[in-house]
Structure formats: structure tokens, C-alpha cells
């Protein structure tokens, strides 16, 4: 089950904690992976640790031309095809709304939502032709529940869910599924910076009483990317230790 041998996967934000785990898990299941992100050095390190079947194409998700180039170069690197696209790249610019600047709002929407749309659009053509595609968009629990200080991030992540449902309906007849995966609080360098008090407050809301691991997110991506999940589309898979049951 969930064998991805012969499949070509592109993971954005692969230099981060969750993105790296996703890339490793897809690779372990047999997929060829292209790692994208802005930190070329971290991507090269991950590539080196994976060995064969791994490529790096650094790209900026706030640059339309760079996104088109990424889609083309990733396909070219993986023998002219792209079967699995995992949109994991994301940034935060947290601020309470009263103080949130236009740039903070726009930057987050541009990278997390618009960039993701552009990359999917650029990847769609080949998937349509081959009658196979798996698009997994990494959204967030806060896209559904909201979070103070993250109006921009929550809007972008909620936007991903609506966008995915629309794309899922457009593309289902071509063998392409489009789903979202919504992590809760996951132990990564991003959450390492939280204070003990902050962590305690978060855990008070998590029935599982611990942070999730990047590997637990990656396992969900492997499932959604698999042949076995062909009948699952337009869905949001929540992996959050019971923090929100929706």
C-alpha cells in the first residue's frame, strides 16, 4: 500500500521542518522528489541525505516568473513529468489587525495563496495530459478556526481550502485530486521558539497533550498522494491531536 515508485513529486518549502519530513516520506515510498524553497543550502543538504532520486530547484513563491520556471525545471529534472505536487511553502507575518500593515497582509497572501495557485496552474497541463495528478496543499488549523494575530495567515490558509475545492471539481474527471492537509501544532524550528508558558497554553487545548511531529503530517501527505486515495478529492485532512474536531 501507498507505494509511490515511479512517481515524480515536487515539494515546496522543503527546507522547513514539515516540508523536509514530507519530502523524506515521499522519497522513502519510492517517489523521485524535487525539493524547492528559498534556502538553497538547506535543500542541498536534504538532497545529499536522500541520495538518488532527489533534485533541487530553489524558487521564490512571490515571483510569478520564478514559479513558472520552477514547474518547468522540476518536470525536466524528473524525466518530463510531475505527478505529485505538495504546496507546503508558507510564511507568517503575525500582528494584531489594528497594527497589521498592508505589506504584512499582502506578502502572506501572495506567498501562501497566490503563489500556490500559480504553481498548481503551471503544473496542471501535464497532469491533465497524463490523466493523473495529486495536489496536496498544506493549510493549517487556523485556516478553519482563526487565530488572533494571524488574520493574514488564517485568510490565506482558509483561501487554500476554498481554492482546493474548486480545483478539485474542475479536475476530478481527469484523474487529478486536489486536497488540503491541515496540521495543528507541530514540533518544528518554527514552534521551538515558543516559550514554555506558550507551549503549556497550547497543550491545554490539545487532547493528545503533546505537539505533533512532522512525520505525522508527512504520513497524511503520503496517503493523499497515493493511488489508493484516488477517490478522495476536495477534502481537508486535519492532523491536530484532537485540537479541533471539524
Amino acid at each position, binding site marked *: 500500500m501507498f507505494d509511490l515508485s515511479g512517481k515524480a513529486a515536487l515539494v515546496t518549502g522543503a527546507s522547513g521542518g514539515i516540508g523536509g519530513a514530507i519530502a523524506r516520506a515521499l522519497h522513502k515510498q519510492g517517489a523521485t522528489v524535487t525539493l524547492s524553497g528559498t534556502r538553497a543550502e538547506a535543500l542541498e543538504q536534504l538532497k545529499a541525505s536522500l541520495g538518488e532520486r532527489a533534485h533541487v530547484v530553489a524558487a521564490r513563491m512571490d515571483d510569478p516568473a520564478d514559479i513558472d520556471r520552477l514547474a518547468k525545471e522540476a518536470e525536466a529534472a524528473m524525466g518530463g513529468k510531475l505527478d505529485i505536487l505538495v504546496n507546503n511553502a508558507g510564511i507568517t507575518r503575525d500582528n494584531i489587525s489594528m497594527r497589521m500593515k498592508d505589506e504584512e497582509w499582502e506578502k502572506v497572501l501572495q506567498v501562501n495563496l497566490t503563489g500556490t495557485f500559480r504553481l498548481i496552474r503551471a503544473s496542471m*497541463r501535464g497532469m*491533465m*495530459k497524463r490523466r493523473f495528478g495529486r495536489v496536496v496543499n498544506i493549510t493549517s488549523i487556523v485556516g478553519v478556526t482563526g487565530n488572533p494575530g494571524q488574520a493574514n495567515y488564517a485568510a490565506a490558509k482558509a483561501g487554500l481550502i476554498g481554492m482546493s475545492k474548486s480545483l478539485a471539481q*474542475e*479536475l476530478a*474527471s*481527469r484523474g487529478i485530486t486536489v486536497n488540503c492537509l491541515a496540521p495543528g501544532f507541530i514540533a518544528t524550528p518554527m514552534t521551538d521558539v515558543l516559550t514554555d508558558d506558550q507551549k503549556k497554553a497550547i497543550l491545554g487545548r490539545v487532547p493528545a497533550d503533546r505537539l505533533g511531529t512532522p512525520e505525522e503530517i508527512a504520513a497524511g501527505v503520503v496517503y493523499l498522494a497515493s493511488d489508493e486515495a484516488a477517490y478522495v478529492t476536495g477534502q481537508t485532512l486535519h492532523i491536530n491531536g484532537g485540537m479541533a474536531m471539524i
Partner: protein
Amino acid sequence: MSDIAERVKKIVVEHLGVEAAQVKEEAKFIDDLGADSLDTVELVMAFEEEFGIEIPDDAAEKIQTVGDAIGFIKGTAKS
């Protein structure tokens, strides 16, 4: 140039699964041949591949009948 018309019709028959007799020049892809909007995008992609041309989006939107497709491709081949 009739060769172009035949190749276009062949692609339409194969792609939409319709009878060759239905594929007249005035036949509309969506209204007469049962194509959906994604089918029309895929037909344009197939034409591009078959004839080694690029059909820009604004031109693609105007290609609504079999004759439109043949006309556009002939025009591109000449230029």
C-alpha cells in the same frame, strides 16, 4: 492545406469520442459535440502538439467550432 482539416478532425474524433460525420466545420465543440470547458482546453493542447504551434489564450477562446480551429491553424502555418 486540406491535410490540416483532416488532422484537426481526426483529433476531435479521437478526443471527444464522436462520429467523424458529426465533425463538420460549422460544428461547435461545446453545443454540438458535447465538449465541456476542460475538453476545449485539451483540444487546444492537442492541436498545439500536433502542429507544433502555440495558441495563445485569447486566440484559444475564439476557437469555438471545428472550422475556427482549422482556420486558425492554417493562418499560423502560413505566417
